[in-house]
């Protein structure tokens, strides 16, 4: 872990000391912002940990807990909303049996997140699964894609 921290620290200096960029790189490495990493950098840079947490909790992109292996991003933009994204979200939440108030399945396989607008409004409603963009989704096609992901897991 320390090796990665040192690499991030070097980049931080190169990036004119920008905490947001640091957190973005940290998340790129670990998939989320580990609390240990925050305290390590807080000590190293002599910046209060509260500053890091203040930034991490302000921006929607940052996650303070590990996410599922597969990320399902539901677009909640205006066009998607008008084309039924709410029903899709309810459907996937039920189908994946997401615990109340949580967005990651208990087995750590799936995280369902909502995003404000992917910018592919003409093919609304849009769902992104593991960075692949799917348009004109219906409850059926969404379930089909999720099952594809589950099947791939078993193939391994």
């Amino acid at each position: 872990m320390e090796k990665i921290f040192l690499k991030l620290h070097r980049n931080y200096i190169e990036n004119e000391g920008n905490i947001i960029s640091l957190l973005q790189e940290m998340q790129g490495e670990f998939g989320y912002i580990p609390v240990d990493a925050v305290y390590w950098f807080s000590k190293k840079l002599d910046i209060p940990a509260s500053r890091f947490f203040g930034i991490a909790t302000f921006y929607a992109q940052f996650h303070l807990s590990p996410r599922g292996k597969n990320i399902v991003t539901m677009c909640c933009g205006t066009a998607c909303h008008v084309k039924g994204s709410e029903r899709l979200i309810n459907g996937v939440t039920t189908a994946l049996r997401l615990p109340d108030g949580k967005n990651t399945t208990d087995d750590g396989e799936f995280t369902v997140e909502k995003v404000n607008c992917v910018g592919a409004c003409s093919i609304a409603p849009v769902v992104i699964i593991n960075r692949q963009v799917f348009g004109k989704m219906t409850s059926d096609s969404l379930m089909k894609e999720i099952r594809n992901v589950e099947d791939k897991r078993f193939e391994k």
Partner: protein
Amino acid sequence: MWRTSALRNKGTTVRICMGTGGIAAGGLEVMNTFKLHLRNKKIQAEVKKNCSMHKVGCRGLCAKDVLVDVLRAGQKTTYQFVKPEMVERIIDEHLIGGAPVSEWVVGEDYARFHERQTKVVLSDCGVVDPEDITSYAASGGYNALKKVISTLSPSAVIEIIKKSGLRGRGGAGFPTGVKWDICSKEKSPQKYLICNADEGDPGAFMDRSVIEGNPHSIIEGMAIGAYAIGASKGYVYIRAEYPLAVERLKKALKQARENRFLGNSVLGKRFGFDIKVKLGAGAFVCGEETALIASIEGQRGMPRAKPPFPVYKGLWGKPTVINNVETLANVPAIVSRGAAWYASLGTEKSRGTKVFALTGKIRNSGLIEVPMGISLKEIIYDIGGGIEHNRNFKAVQTGGPSGGCIPADLLEIKVDFESLAKVGSIVGSGGMVVLDESDCMVNIAKFFLQFTQSESCGKCVPCRIGTKRLLEILERITSGKGRSGDIELLEELANDVKATSLCGLGQTAPNPILSTIRYFRDEYEAHIVSKKCPAGVCRDLLSYVVRQEACKGCGMCKRVCPAGAVTGEKKEAHKIDPEICVRCGACFEACKFKAIGKG
């Protein structure tokens, strides 16, 4: 018949849509199929990646559609709904044989869709290869920058932009020339030019398409702007949710530096300018200029009081100009073709063209660019092709969460800054979501408040608490708990939030509420007084009933019901128990005999 790539102009070119939408529709598979077959048939042709506006006038617009242009012997043919299995025939009959496969070619409506548009910003999207600077140059790219650096003084450049009448395309519509003028007159050893590519409005993808489709137009626009104001450093603040745009932009920047359009000595002259890319981190409020600046500085994206305006004191306290992507994309064309040309488009106070993202319940959903002052009717019906599924037009929501809706009896309205403001909406960044009779206007207002409330940075009380209370009232209304006096309360609170919020987010968040009350008060009253949702959207106000005479007793509804609310024997009419029903609508969706009534 076939040429090598060295004689590209005389050969055949195939263009395939590779924007985010095009890729989602299968553009990559189509392109790979083209490459495979062409290689197998030992043909040398250029298969170029192009970002045309996705959904360019196509009907249907479903996920598997891909548009392909074939340019052969000076003729352009456009294919629609292209799938990988169609590729071989297109190659054999058209690319080799010379005869287009007519049954797959776009229809007349495609031509009509484009004829009524005036493309300035989008003129090269779908033509140039966004990953190849030589393609941009072949189209006249960077000639404007060359002209500026060799023959014009900074003040001359500012005069051109001022005379053109260009106004900011991000939503505020501030005259660009004036902004550049003020900043240029500030004395400071360091100035900045920032391109605002945060495009946070849900339903807007104009900027994404320009950056994915023609990133060099932004770089050239920024370089010209930086020269005019005296900035040596530039930033493009782009939202992280646009990975393809980020990738293409970074590639373009690298190519621009290699060709000396950026760097310490641009085109060998004494002007130095370079651009860094800064990723957003998922905060709508960072589209507001002072919050954006805070974000670039690595802080929480909270707005600051204005004055002082960024042109005087901006990034790191230095004079800074912030321009929207579309604004900057207009600059090279204005410099090349002249201020008078640009000013001849549009209206007196709203010169030029505007790119709109036309989405929602419209047939030809996609990106359009039209002269300011065109009528809304022409956009919706002539270009947009009217409402899909032959439903009735109800309203069009413009300007995203900061805007308002325009109802059917105002369809003749001219789309420009002043006219839309008069009816309680705004041009905004360019999002236009079309609504039909199946959309509930109270639900739309609630949707926007859910958005702005969660995006509120929390710094000022009117926005932090005001949007929360506005949302609570709307939630009560849409769940059947509306009270007499709620509409007046919404209006009063909305006006207070507008008047006292620190930044544009709070100042405009109440607009959708005020606008929907202004034109659709009866819908609010139906929700509050009769506890009914006329459009059939608000779940708690709906009831689902099996129409006994239509029910075939197939049992599908009983199977899909998650609450066990449906009873009935096979081949006998079923019944829904309203006490148990959770109104999820699953039965309504599942019934193949339209036997479930919603109301």
